[in-house]
Protein backbone atom coordinates (compact mmCIF):
# COMPACT_ATOMS: atom_id res chain seq x y z
CA UNK A 1 0.00 0.00 0.00
CA UNK A 2 1.05 3.58 -0.55
CA UNK A 3 3.39 4.58 2.28
CA UNK A 4 1.72 7.99 2.54
CA UNK A 5 -1.73 6.56 3.06
CA UNK A 6 -0.81 3.61 5.25
CA UNK A 7 -0.36 5.50 8.55
CA UNK A 8 -3.81 7.01 8.21
CA UNK A 9 -5.36 3.65 7.44
CA UNK A 10 -3.69 2.19 10.50
CA UNK A 11 -5.02 4.83 12.89
CA UNK A 12 -8.47 4.74 11.31
CA UNK A 13 -9.96 2.04 13.61
CA UNK A 14 -8.90 3.89 16.75
CA UNK A 15 -10.10 7.19 15.36
CA UNK A 16 -13.45 5.68 14.44
CA UNK A 17 -13.76 4.07 17.86
CA UNK A 18 -13.00 7.34 19.64
CA UNK A 19 -15.40 9.29 17.43
CA UNK A 20 -18.19 6.83 18.06
CA UNK A 21 -17.74 6.24 21.78
CA UNK A 22 -16.12 9.47 22.90
CA UNK A 23 -16.68 12.36 20.54
CA UNK A 24 -20.31 11.53 19.77
CA UNK A 25 -21.43 11.12 23.41
CA UNK A 26 -19.47 14.25 24.23
CA UNK A 27 -21.38 16.21 21.63
CA UNK A 28 -24.62 14.77 23.02
CA UNK A 29 -23.67 15.79 26.55
CA UNK A 30 -22.69 19.27 25.38
CA UNK A 31 -26.00 19.57 23.57
CA UNK A 32 -27.87 18.48 26.67
CA UNK A 33 -25.94 20.92 28.85
CA UNK A 34 -26.75 23.90 26.63
CA UNK A 35 -30.45 23.16 26.08
CA UNK A 36 -33.59 22.72 28.16
CA UNK A 37 -35.92 21.73 25.36
CA UNK A 38 -36.29 25.07 23.60
CA UNK A 39 -32.99 25.98 21.98
CA UNK A 40 -29.63 27.21 23.26
CA UNK A 41 -29.56 28.29 26.89
CA UNK A 42 -27.24 28.65 29.86
CA UNK A 43 -30.03 27.79 32.31
CA UNK A 44 -28.53 24.44 33.28
CA UNK A 45 -25.27 26.14 34.23
CA UNK A 46 -27.10 28.89 36.14
CA UNK A 47 -29.06 26.23 38.00
CA UNK A 48 -26.11 24.05 39.09
CA UNK A 49 -23.79 26.94 39.94
CA UNK A 50 -26.56 28.71 41.87
CA UNK A 51 -27.35 25.65 43.97
CA UNK A 52 -26.14 26.00 47.60
CA UNK A 53 -24.10 22.77 47.45
CA UNK A 54 -22.05 23.86 44.42
CA UNK A 55 -19.53 26.12 46.19
CA UNK A 56 -19.07 23.49 48.91
CA UNK A 57 -18.50 20.66 46.48
CA UNK A 58 -16.15 22.81 44.37
CA UNK A 59 -14.25 23.84 47.47
CA UNK A 60 -14.06 20.25 48.73
CA UNK A 61 -12.79 18.98 45.40
CA UNK A 62 -10.12 21.69 45.15
CA UNK A 63 -9.08 21.25 48.79
CA UNK A 64 -8.78 17.51 48.35
CA UNK A 65 -6.70 17.93 45.20
CA UNK A 66 -4.53 20.55 46.91
CA UNK A 67 -3.93 18.24 49.86
CA UNK A 68 -3.46 15.00 47.97
CA UNK A 69 -1.53 15.86 44.80
CA UNK A 70 1.51 17.59 46.38
CA UNK A 71 1.88 14.79 48.93
CA UNK A 72 1.65 12.22 46.16
CA UNK A 73 4.15 14.12 44.04
CA UNK A 74 6.67 14.27 46.88
CA UNK A 75 6.10 10.62 47.79
CA UNK A 76 6.32 9.47 44.18
CA UNK A 77 9.57 11.41 43.65
CA UNK A 78 11.05 9.98 46.83
CA UNK A 79 10.00 6.44 45.94
CA UNK A 80 11.19 6.78 42.33
CA UNK A 81 14.60 8.04 43.48
CA UNK A 82 14.88 5.18 45.95
CA UNK A 83 13.86 2.55 43.40
CA UNK A 84 16.34 3.96 40.91
CA UNK A 85 19.20 3.63 43.38
CA UNK A 86 18.46 -0.04 44.04
CA UNK A 87 20.84 -2.58 42.57
CA UNK A 88 18.70 -5.66 43.17
CA UNK A 89 15.03 -6.33 43.84
CA UNK A 90 14.05 -3.15 42.04
CA UNK A 91 11.26 -4.76 40.02
CA UNK A 92 9.83 -6.61 43.02
CA UNK A 93 9.61 -3.40 45.05
CA UNK A 94 8.01 -1.60 42.11
CA UNK A 95 5.37 -4.34 41.71
CA UNK A 96 4.53 -4.26 45.42
CA UNK A 97 4.24 -0.48 45.37
CA UNK A 98 1.94 -0.53 42.38
CA UNK A 99 -0.49 -3.10 43.84
CA UNK A 100 -3.01 -0.39 44.88
CA UNK A 101 -3.25 0.56 41.21
CA UNK A 102 -4.86 -2.79 40.49
CA UNK A 103 -7.69 -2.18 42.94
CA UNK A 104 -10.81 -0.32 41.89
CA UNK A 105 -11.35 3.00 43.62
CA UNK A 106 -14.54 1.79 45.28
CA UNK A 107 -12.70 -1.22 46.70
CA UNK A 108 -9.97 1.12 47.94
CA UNK A 109 -12.61 3.25 49.63
CA UNK A 110 -14.11 0.17 51.29
CA UNK A 111 -10.68 -0.97 52.55
CA UNK A 112 -10.21 2.38 54.28
CA UNK A 113 -13.81 2.29 55.49
CA UNK A 114 -12.96 -0.98 57.22
CA UNK A 115 -10.23 0.89 59.05
CA UNK A 116 -12.12 4.03 60.01
CA UNK A 117 -15.72 2.87 60.60
CA UNK A 118 -17.21 2.49 64.06
CA UNK A 119 -16.48 -1.25 64.25
CA UNK A 120 -13.29 -0.87 62.22
CA UNK A 121 -9.65 -1.70 62.80
CA UNK A 122 -8.73 1.74 64.12
CA UNK A 123 -11.42 1.62 66.80
CA UNK A 124 -10.48 -1.97 67.78
CA UNK A 125 -6.89 -0.87 68.12
CA UNK A 126 -7.66 2.27 70.10
CA UNK A 127 -9.97 0.46 72.53
CA UNK A 128 -7.49 -2.43 72.80
CA UNK A 129 -4.85 0.08 73.81
CA UNK A 130 -7.31 1.69 76.20
CA UNK A 131 -7.19 5.06 74.44
CA UNK A 132 -10.99 5.12 74.01
CA UNK A 133 -13.55 3.37 76.22
CA UNK A 134 -16.11 2.93 73.45
CA UNK A 135 -15.88 3.00 69.66
CA UNK A 136 -15.86 6.48 68.12
CA UNK A 137 -17.79 7.19 64.94
CA UNK A 138 -14.93 8.90 63.12
CA UNK A 139 -16.74 9.25 59.81
CA UNK A 140 -19.59 11.37 61.11
CA UNK A 141 -20.53 15.01 60.75
CA UNK A 142 -18.94 15.67 64.17
CA UNK A 143 -15.50 14.90 62.78
CA UNK A 144 -15.25 16.63 59.38
CA UNK A 145 -11.47 16.78 59.74
CA UNK A 146 -11.21 13.03 60.18
CA UNK A 147 -13.48 12.43 57.19
CA UNK A 148 -11.26 14.66 55.07
CA UNK A 149 -8.13 12.98 56.39
CA UNK A 150 -9.50 9.48 55.75
CA UNK A 151 -10.42 10.39 52.17
CA UNK A 152 -7.05 12.03 51.58
CA UNK A 153 -5.19 9.03 53.00
CA UNK A 154 -7.17 6.59 50.87
CA UNK A 155 -6.53 8.67 47.76
CA UNK A 156 -2.79 8.93 48.50
CA UNK A 157 -2.59 5.21 49.16
CA UNK A 158 -4.55 4.37 46.04
CA UNK A 159 -3.12 6.61 43.37
CA UNK A 160 0.48 7.51 44.20
CA UNK A 161 1.71 4.57 42.16
CA UNK A 162 0.38 6.02 38.91
CA UNK A 163 2.76 8.96 39.35
CA UNK A 164 5.49 6.63 40.59
CA UNK A 165 5.61 4.49 37.44
CA UNK A 166 5.74 7.55 35.19
CA UNK A 167 8.51 9.15 37.25
CA UNK A 168 10.53 5.94 37.52
CA UNK A 169 10.51 5.67 33.73
CA UNK A 170 11.43 9.36 33.44
CA UNK A 171 14.33 9.19 35.89
CA UNK A 172 15.64 6.13 34.06
CA UNK A 173 15.95 8.25 30.92
CA UNK A 174 18.35 10.75 32.49
CA UNK A 175 21.92 9.80 31.50
CA UNK A 176 24.20 8.95 34.44
CA UNK A 177 26.90 11.21 33.06
CA UNK A 178 24.91 14.33 34.04
CA UNK A 179 24.97 13.25 37.68
CA UNK A 180 28.67 12.51 37.53
CA UNK A 181 29.37 15.87 35.93
CA UNK A 182 27.27 17.61 38.58
CA UNK A 183 29.10 15.68 41.31
CA UNK A 184 32.52 16.59 39.94
CA UNK A 185 31.49 20.24 39.69
CA UNK A 186 30.47 20.32 43.32
CA UNK A 187 26.73 19.59 43.49
CA UNK A 188 25.62 17.89 46.73
CA UNK A 189 23.09 15.03 46.48
CA UNK A 190 20.27 17.49 47.21
CA UNK A 191 21.55 19.96 44.59
CA UNK A 192 21.84 17.12 42.09
CA UNK A 193 18.20 16.34 42.75
CA UNK A 194 16.98 19.92 42.45
CA UNK A 195 19.36 21.09 39.70
CA UNK A 196 19.55 17.96 37.53
CA UNK A 197 16.78 15.45 38.29
CA UNK A 198 13.85 17.84 38.65
CA UNK A 199 14.51 20.01 35.59
CA UNK A 200 15.31 17.02 33.38
CA UNK A 201 12.22 15.26 34.67
CA UNK A 202 9.88 18.04 33.51
CA UNK A 203 8.30 16.06 30.65
CA UNK A 204 7.50 13.15 32.99
CA UNK A 205 6.35 15.52 35.72
CA UNK A 206 3.99 17.13 33.22
CA UNK A 207 2.44 13.79 32.29
CA UNK A 208 2.23 12.57 35.88
CA UNK A 209 0.71 15.80 37.19
CA UNK A 210 -1.78 16.23 34.36
CA UNK A 211 -2.98 12.67 34.78
CA UNK A 212 -3.14 12.89 38.54
CA UNK A 213 -4.82 16.30 38.69
CA UNK A 214 -7.49 15.23 36.22
CA UNK A 215 -8.11 12.12 38.32
CA UNK A 216 -8.28 14.31 41.42
CA UNK A 217 -11.14 16.34 39.95
CA UNK A 218 -12.95 13.12 39.07
CA UNK A 219 -12.64 11.73 42.60
CA UNK A 220 -15.88 9.90 43.43
CA UNK A 221 -16.02 6.32 44.73
CA UNK A 222 -13.49 6.75 47.55
CA UNK A 223 -15.36 9.87 48.71
CA UNK A 224 -18.68 8.09 48.49
CA UNK A 225 -17.45 5.11 50.49
CA UNK A 226 -15.85 7.15 53.26
CA UNK A 227 -17.76 10.42 53.37
CA UNK A 228 -21.10 9.61 51.78
CA UNK A 229 -23.09 12.82 51.67
CA UNK A 230 -20.96 14.42 54.41
CA UNK A 231 -18.33 15.41 51.90
CA UNK A 232 -19.93 16.50 48.62
CA UNK A 233 -17.56 16.77 45.66
CA UNK A 234 -18.22 17.83 42.05
CA UNK A 235 -18.48 14.27 40.79
CA UNK A 236 -20.92 13.14 43.51
CA UNK A 237 -23.08 16.16 42.74
CA UNK A 238 -23.09 15.21 39.07
CA UNK A 239 -24.12 11.69 40.04
CA UNK A 240 -26.90 13.07 42.25
CA UNK A 241 -28.28 15.25 39.44
CA UNK A 242 -28.30 12.33 37.01
CA UNK A 243 -29.58 9.48 39.17
CA UNK A 244 -31.30 11.04 42.22
CA UNK A 245 -32.85 14.13 40.68
CA UNK A 246 -33.06 12.64 37.17
CA UNK A 247 -31.98 16.00 35.75
CA UNK A 248 -29.62 15.02 32.94
CA UNK A 249 -29.33 18.61 31.68
CA UNK A 250 -27.88 19.72 35.01
CA UNK A 251 -25.67 16.61 35.21
CA UNK A 252 -24.33 17.38 31.73
CA UNK A 253 -23.60 20.96 32.76
CA UNK A 254 -21.72 19.71 35.83
CA UNK A 255 -19.71 17.32 33.65
CA UNK A 256 -18.72 20.19 31.37
CA UNK A 257 -17.70 22.34 34.34
CA UNK A 258 -15.42 19.53 35.59
CA UNK A 259 -14.00 19.20 32.09
CA UNK A 260 -13.33 22.96 31.92
CA UNK A 261 -11.55 22.90 35.28
CA UNK A 262 -9.46 19.91 34.17
CA UNK A 263 -8.48 21.62 30.92
CA UNK A 264 -7.64 24.79 32.82
CA UNK A 265 -5.32 22.99 35.22
CA UNK A 266 -3.78 20.94 32.41
CA UNK A 267 -2.86 24.13 30.58
CA UNK A 268 -1.40 25.64 33.75
CA UNK A 269 0.72 22.52 34.38
CA UNK A 270 1.91 22.32 30.76
CA UNK A 271 2.81 26.00 30.85
CA UNK A 272 4.57 25.86 34.23
CA UNK A 273 6.67 22.82 33.36
CA UNK A 274 7.34 23.59 29.72
CA UNK A 275 10.78 22.78 28.36
CA UNK A 276 12.36 25.51 26.22
CA UNK A 277 13.18 24.62 22.63
CA UNK A 278 16.59 22.99 22.38
CA UNK A 279 16.70 22.15 26.08
CA UNK A 280 15.55 18.53 25.89
CA UNK A 281 17.78 15.57 26.75
Amino acid at each position, binding site marked *: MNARVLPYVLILPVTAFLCLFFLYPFVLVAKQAFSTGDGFTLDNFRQVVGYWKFPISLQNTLLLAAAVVPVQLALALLMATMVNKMQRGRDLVLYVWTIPLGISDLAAGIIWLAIFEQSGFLNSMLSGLGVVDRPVNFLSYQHPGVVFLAIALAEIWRATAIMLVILVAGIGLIPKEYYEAAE*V*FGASPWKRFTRITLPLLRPSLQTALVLRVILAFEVFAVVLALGGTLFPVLMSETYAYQFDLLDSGAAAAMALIILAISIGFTLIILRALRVPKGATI
Partner: protein
Amino acid sequence: MAEIQIKNVAKRFGSYQALRDINLTIQDQEFMVLLGASGCGKTTLLRIIAGLETATEGEVWIGGRRVDHLPPKDRGIAMVFQNYAVFPHLTVFENIGFGLRMQKLPNDEVKRRVERTAGLMHIDQLLGRYSGELSGGQRQRVAVARALAMEPDVILMDEPLSNLDALLRMEMRAELKGVLAESNTTAIYVTHDQVEAMSMADRISVMHQGKIVQAASPIEVYRNPAAEFVAGFIGNPPMNFLPATPAGDGKWTVAGQILDGPSRTTPLHFAIRPEDLRPADTGLAAMVKVVEPLGAHLLVTCSVDGALFRAVLDSDLTVRRGDTLTLAPQPDRVRWFDPETTLAVA
Protein backbone atom coordinates in the same frame (compact mmCIF):
# COMPACT_ATOMS: atom_id res chain seq x y z
CA MET B 1 51.09 23.08 42.55
CA ALA B 2 49.39 19.82 41.82
CA GLU B 3 51.54 16.80 41.49
CA ILE B 4 49.50 13.61 41.29
CA GLN B 5 50.71 10.41 42.85
CA ILE B 6 49.02 7.10 42.38
CA LYS B 7 50.32 4.47 44.77
CA ASN B 8 49.66 0.73 44.40
CA VAL B 9 46.14 1.28 43.08
CA ALA B 10 44.11 -1.81 42.25
CA LYS B 11 40.46 -2.12 41.29
CA ARG B 12 38.30 -5.21 41.21
CA PHE B 13 34.73 -5.41 39.89
CA GLY B 14 33.55 -8.65 41.49
CA SER B 15 36.02 -11.24 40.27
CA TYR B 16 37.23 -9.06 37.40
CA GLN B 17 40.56 -7.37 38.04
CA ALA B 18 40.27 -4.05 36.19
CA LEU B 19 43.47 -2.47 37.51
CA ARG B 20 46.53 -3.88 39.27
CA ASP B 21 49.69 -2.39 40.77
CA ILE B 22 49.22 1.07 39.35
CA ASN B 23 52.07 3.35 40.42
CA LEU B 24 52.35 6.64 38.62
CA THR B 25 53.57 10.12 39.40
CA ILE B 26 52.35 12.99 37.26
CA GLN B 27 54.36 16.19 37.60
CA ASP B 28 52.79 19.57 38.24
CA GLN B 29 51.50 21.07 34.97
CA GLU B 30 52.35 17.93 33.07
CA PHE B 31 50.12 16.70 30.24
CA MET B 32 49.80 12.97 30.84
CA VAL B 33 47.97 10.75 28.40
CA LEU B 34 46.62 7.35 29.43
CA LEU B 35 46.67 5.34 26.22
CA GLY B 36 45.32 1.89 25.63
CA ALA B 37 42.75 -0.22 23.80
CA SER B 38 39.19 -0.28 25.15
CA GLY B 39 38.89 -2.35 28.30
CA CYS B 40 42.49 -1.75 29.41
CA GLY B 41 41.40 0.14 32.52
CA LYS B 42 42.39 3.65 31.50
CA THR B 43 38.94 5.17 32.09
CA THR B 44 38.62 3.32 35.40
CA LEU B 45 41.94 4.81 36.53
CA LEU B 46 40.77 8.29 35.52
CA ARG B 47 37.50 7.81 37.40
CA ILE B 48 39.41 6.70 40.49
CA ILE B 49 41.48 9.89 40.32
CA ALA B 50 38.26 11.89 39.85
CA GLY B 51 36.55 10.19 42.77
CA LEU B 52 33.72 8.75 40.70
CA GLU B 53 35.04 5.27 41.42
CA THR B 54 36.69 3.93 44.56
CA ALA B 55 39.92 1.98 44.33
CA THR B 56 39.89 -1.46 45.92
CA GLU B 57 43.44 -0.87 47.10
CA GLY B 58 45.98 1.92 47.03
CA GLU B 59 46.18 5.67 47.47
CA VAL B 60 45.68 8.77 45.35
CA TRP B 61 47.53 11.97 46.24
CA ILE B 62 46.94 15.33 44.60
CA GLY B 63 49.17 18.28 45.49
CA GLY B 64 50.68 16.51 48.47
CA ARG B 65 47.28 15.68 49.94
CA ARG B 66 45.77 12.24 50.14
CA VAL B 67 42.41 12.47 48.36
CA ASP B 68 41.09 8.95 47.85
CA HIS B 69 38.60 9.34 50.72
CA LEU B 70 37.39 12.75 49.51
CA PRO B 71 34.37 13.42 47.29
CA PRO B 72 35.20 14.67 43.74
CA LYS B 73 34.41 18.29 44.60
CA ASP B 74 37.09 18.45 47.29
CA ARG B 75 39.90 17.13 45.10
CA GLY B 76 40.61 20.31 43.15
CA ILE B 77 39.74 18.66 39.86
CA ALA B 78 37.53 19.38 36.88
CA MET B 79 36.53 16.89 34.26
CA VAL B 80 35.59 16.73 30.58
CA PHE B 81 33.36 13.78 29.82
CA GLN B 82 33.33 11.61 26.73
CA ASN B 83 29.74 12.50 25.85
CA TYR B 84 30.36 16.05 27.09
CA ALA B 85 27.57 15.88 29.71
CA VAL B 86 26.56 19.44 28.84
CA PHE B 87 23.35 19.92 30.84
CA PRO B 88 20.51 20.17 28.33
CA HIS B 89 18.25 22.27 30.54
CA LEU B 90 20.81 25.01 31.12
CA THR B 91 22.12 27.62 28.72
CA VAL B 92 25.75 27.56 27.68
CA PHE B 93 26.38 30.36 30.19
CA GLU B 94 24.84 28.41 33.07
CA ASN B 95 26.65 25.25 31.99
CA ILE B 96 30.03 26.93 32.11
CA GLY B 97 29.11 28.61 35.37
CA PHE B 98 27.63 25.48 36.97
CA GLY B 99 30.62 24.67 39.16
CA LEU B 100 31.08 28.33 40.09
CA ARG B 101 27.42 28.58 41.16
CA MET B 102 27.90 25.45 43.28
CA GLN B 103 30.79 27.24 44.98
CA LYS B 104 28.39 30.15 45.59
CA LEU B 105 30.67 32.68 43.92
CA PRO B 106 29.19 36.17 43.51
CA ASN B 107 27.35 36.85 40.24
CA ASP B 108 29.90 39.24 38.78
CA GLU B 109 32.73 36.77 39.43
CA VAL B 110 30.73 33.99 37.74
CA LYS B 111 30.07 36.30 34.80
CA ARG B 112 33.71 37.33 34.55
CA ARG B 113 35.02 33.76 34.59
CA VAL B 114 32.35 32.40 32.24
CA GLU B 115 33.01 35.14 29.72
CA ARG B 116 36.77 34.70 29.95
CA THR B 117 36.72 30.92 29.39
CA ALA B 118 34.01 31.22 26.72
CA GLY B 119 36.29 33.67 24.92
CA LEU B 120 39.19 31.27 25.27
CA MET B 121 37.16 28.48 23.67
CA HIS B 122 35.62 30.83 21.05
CA ILE B 123 32.05 30.24 22.15
CA ASP B 124 31.22 33.73 23.43
CA GLN B 125 28.53 34.01 20.76
CA LEU B 126 26.71 30.94 22.10
CA LEU B 127 26.25 31.84 25.77
CA GLY B 128 22.46 32.15 25.51
CA ARG B 129 21.89 28.89 23.68
CA TYR B 130 20.84 25.45 24.92
CA SER B 131 22.90 22.36 24.17
CA GLY B 132 20.21 21.06 21.80
CA GLU B 133 21.02 24.00 19.55
CA LEU B 134 24.76 23.26 19.44
CA SER B 135 26.88 21.06 17.17
CA GLY B 136 29.06 18.30 18.60
CA GLY B 137 32.15 20.47 18.32
CA GLN B 138 30.45 23.37 20.09
CA ARG B 139 29.27 21.10 22.92
CA GLN B 140 32.82 19.87 23.25
CA ARG B 141 33.98 23.46 23.64
CA VAL B 142 31.33 24.10 26.30
CA ALA B 143 32.48 21.02 28.22
CA VAL B 144 36.10 22.19 28.16
CA ALA B 145 35.13 25.76 29.07
CA ARG B 146 33.10 24.46 32.02
CA ALA B 147 36.17 22.62 33.30
CA LEU B 148 38.52 25.58 32.73
CA ALA B 149 36.16 28.02 34.44
CA MET B 150 36.76 26.14 37.68
CA GLU B 151 40.44 27.11 37.46
CA PRO B 152 41.22 23.62 38.75
CA ASP B 153 44.61 22.24 39.81
CA VAL B 154 43.95 19.17 37.70
CA ILE B 155 41.84 18.70 34.61
CA LEU B 156 40.73 15.19 33.72
CA MET B 157 39.61 14.33 30.21
CA ASP B 158 37.92 11.08 29.21
CA GLU B 159 38.25 10.61 25.43
CA PRO B 160 37.02 14.16 24.89
CA LEU B 161 37.54 14.18 21.13
CA SER B 162 36.32 10.69 20.28
CA ASN B 163 32.85 11.83 19.21
CA LEU B 164 34.09 14.45 16.75
CA ASP B 165 34.74 13.91 13.06
CA ALA B 166 38.34 13.53 11.91
CA LEU B 167 38.94 17.08 10.70
CA LEU B 168 37.40 18.70 13.78
CA ARG B 169 39.35 16.33 15.99
CA MET B 170 42.65 17.48 14.50
CA GLU B 171 41.66 21.13 14.92
CA MET B 172 40.51 20.65 18.53
CA ARG B 173 43.63 18.66 19.37
CA ALA B 174 45.94 21.57 18.66
CA GLU B 175 43.58 24.07 20.26
CA LEU B 176 43.12 22.02 23.41
CA LYS B 177 46.85 21.55 23.79
CA GLY B 178 47.41 25.31 23.50
CA VAL B 179 44.64 26.25 25.92
CA LEU B 180 45.76 23.72 28.52
CA ALA B 181 49.40 24.78 28.27
CA GLU B 182 48.33 28.35 29.02
CA SER B 183 46.07 27.39 31.91
CA ASN B 184 49.00 25.93 33.91
CA THR B 185 46.97 22.96 35.08
CA THR B 186 48.05 19.36 35.37
CA ALA B 187 46.13 17.35 32.79
CA ILE B 188 45.29 13.67 32.52
CA TYR B 189 43.88 12.71 29.19
CA VAL B 190 42.42 9.30 28.37
CA THR B 191 42.40 8.16 24.76
CA HIS B 192 42.68 5.09 22.56
CA ASP B 193 43.94 7.20 19.67
CA GLN B 194 47.73 7.00 19.49
CA VAL B 195 48.00 10.02 17.19
CA GLU B 196 46.19 12.11 19.80
CA ALA B 197 48.48 10.72 22.49
CA MET B 198 51.68 11.30 20.52
CA SER B 199 50.76 14.81 19.47
CA MET B 200 49.44 16.14 22.78
CA ALA B 201 51.28 14.41 25.60
CA ASP B 202 54.29 15.42 27.63
CA ARG B 203 54.28 11.80 28.72
CA ILE B 204 52.26 8.78 27.70
CA SER B 205 51.27 5.91 29.98
CA VAL B 206 50.54 2.92 27.82
CA MET B 207 48.07 0.61 29.55
CA HIS B 208 47.34 -3.02 28.82
CA GLN B 209 45.12 -5.45 30.75
CA GLY B 210 44.87 -3.23 33.80
CA LYS B 211 48.56 -2.41 34.06
CA ILE B 212 50.79 0.44 33.01
CA VAL B 213 53.26 -1.11 30.60
CA GLN B 214 55.31 2.00 29.98
CA ALA B 215 55.19 5.62 31.05
CA ALA B 216 57.54 7.83 29.08
CA SER B 217 57.74 10.72 26.64
CA PRO B 218 56.03 10.13 23.27
CA ILE B 219 59.31 9.83 21.39
CA GLU B 220 60.71 7.42 23.99
CA VAL B 221 57.59 5.26 23.81
CA TYR B 222 57.89 5.29 20.04
CA ARG B 223 61.64 4.70 19.76
CA ASN B 224 62.22 2.47 22.76
CA PRO B 225 59.04 0.54 23.54
CA ALA B 226 59.41 -1.22 26.87
CA ALA B 227 57.44 -4.26 25.77
CA GLU B 228 56.25 -5.98 22.64
CA PHE B 229 52.72 -4.78 23.36
CA VAL B 230 53.82 -1.14 23.18
CA ALA B 231 55.84 -1.79 20.03
CA GLY B 232 52.84 -3.39 18.38
CA PHE B 233 50.33 -0.80 19.65
CA ILE B 234 52.17 2.44 18.92
CA GLY B 235 52.99 3.43 15.38
CA ASN B 236 50.95 3.07 12.25
CA PRO B 237 51.88 0.64 10.81
CA PRO B 238 53.30 -0.93 13.98
CA MET B 239 56.75 -2.44 14.48
CA ASN B 240 57.79 -5.55 12.58
CA PHE B 241 58.82 -8.63 14.55
CA LEU B 242 60.95 -11.58 13.46
CA PRO B 243 62.26 -14.49 15.49
CA ALA B 244 66.02 -14.34 16.10
CA THR B 245 68.33 -17.18 17.14
CA PRO B 246 71.68 -16.60 18.85
CA ALA B 247 74.77 -17.18 16.66
CA GLY B 248 77.30 -16.48 19.42
CA ASP B 249 79.34 -13.40 20.33
CA GLY B 250 76.40 -11.02 20.17
CA LYS B 251 75.51 -12.13 16.65
CA TRP B 252 71.99 -13.15 15.75
CA THR B 253 70.43 -15.02 12.86
CA VAL B 254 67.33 -13.22 11.60
CA ALA B 255 65.64 -14.63 8.50
CA GLY B 256 68.93 -16.09 7.33
CA GLN B 257 70.86 -12.87 7.90
CA ILE B 258 73.50 -12.32 10.57
CA LEU B 259 72.91 -9.15 12.61
CA ASP B 260 74.57 -7.58 15.65
CA GLY B 261 72.55 -7.76 18.87
CA PRO B 262 72.72 -8.21 22.65
CA SER B 263 74.84 -10.94 24.20
CA ARG B 264 72.31 -13.56 25.16
CA THR B 265 71.98 -17.27 24.68
CA THR B 266 68.18 -17.68 24.52
CA PRO B 267 66.15 -16.82 21.39
CA LEU B 268 64.82 -13.28 21.09
CA HIS B 269 62.46 -11.30 18.89
CA PHE B 270 64.03 -8.87 16.48
CA ALA B 271 61.96 -5.69 15.95
CA ILE B 272 62.23 -2.78 13.55
CA ARG B 273 59.90 0.07 12.58
CA PRO B 274 58.72 0.03 8.93
CA GLU B 275 60.27 3.44 8.28
CA ASP B 276 63.68 2.29 9.53
CA LEU B 277 64.23 -0.05 6.58
CA ARG B 278 66.15 0.88 3.42
CA PRO B 279 66.57 -1.04 0.18
CA ALA B 280 70.22 -2.12 0.08
CA ASP B 281 72.56 -4.73 -1.36
CA THR B 282 72.54 -6.90 1.74
CA GLY B 283 69.70 -7.34 4.18
CA LEU B 284 66.43 -9.19 4.73
CA ALA B 285 64.92 -10.78 1.64
CA ALA B 286 61.33 -9.54 1.38
CA MET B 287 58.72 -10.85 -1.07
CA VAL B 288 56.39 -7.95 -1.96
CA LYS B 289 52.71 -8.83 -1.53
CA VAL B 290 50.91 -5.47 -1.55
CA VAL B 291 52.08 -2.00 -2.56
CA GLU B 292 50.14 1.02 -1.25
CA PRO B 293 51.28 4.40 -2.61
CA LEU B 294 50.36 6.94 0.10
CA GLY B 295 51.67 10.03 -1.67
CA ALA B 296 54.41 11.04 0.74
CA HIS B 297 55.75 7.51 0.80
CA LEU B 298 55.15 3.95 -0.23
CA LEU B 299 53.76 1.38 2.18
CA VAL B 300 54.97 -2.05 1.15
CA THR B 301 53.61 -5.20 2.77
CA CYS B 302 55.87 -8.17 2.23
CA SER B 303 56.70 -11.58 3.51
CA VAL B 304 60.05 -12.15 5.19
CA ASP B 305 60.78 -15.76 5.98
CA GLY B 306 57.02 -16.40 5.94
CA ALA B 307 56.26 -13.61 8.43
CA LEU B 308 54.24 -10.45 7.70
CA PHE B 309 56.59 -7.51 7.32
CA ARG B 310 55.91 -3.87 6.42
CA ALA B 311 58.24 -1.24 5.09
CA VAL B 312 57.70 2.46 4.49
CA LEU B 313 59.83 3.39 1.49
CA ASP B 314 60.56 6.41 -0.64
CA SER B 315 57.70 7.10 -3.05
CA ASP B 316 60.15 7.45 -5.97
CA LEU B 317 60.94 3.75 -5.84
CA THR B 318 59.34 1.47 -8.36
CA VAL B 319 58.11 -1.60 -6.51
CA ARG B 320 55.69 -4.15 -7.86
CA ARG B 321 53.84 -7.04 -6.37
CA GLY B 322 55.94 -10.19 -6.62
CA ASP B 323 59.29 -8.32 -6.52
CA THR B 324 61.88 -9.41 -4.01
CA LEU B 325 63.44 -6.51 -2.10
CA THR B 326 66.53 -6.58 0.03
CA LEU B 327 65.77 -4.44 3.08
CA ALA B 328 68.51 -3.32 5.44
CA PRO B 329 67.42 -2.34 8.97
CA GLN B 330 69.03 0.85 10.30
CA PRO B 331 71.30 -0.68 12.98
CA ASP B 332 70.68 1.93 15.73
CA ARG B 333 66.90 1.50 15.36
CA VAL B 334 66.79 -2.25 15.84
CA ARG B 335 65.14 -3.37 19.09
CA TRP B 336 65.11 -6.79 20.79
CA PHE B 337 62.44 -8.39 22.96
CA ASP B 338 62.49 -11.45 25.16
CA PRO B 339 59.66 -13.73 23.96
CA GLU B 340 59.29 -15.18 27.50
CA THR B 341 58.64 -11.89 29.29
CA THR B 342 57.79 -9.82 26.14
CA LEU B 343 59.98 -7.09 27.64
CA ALA B 344 62.66 -5.14 25.82
CA VAL B 345 66.24 -6.40 26.01
CA ALA B 346 69.07 -3.87 25.97
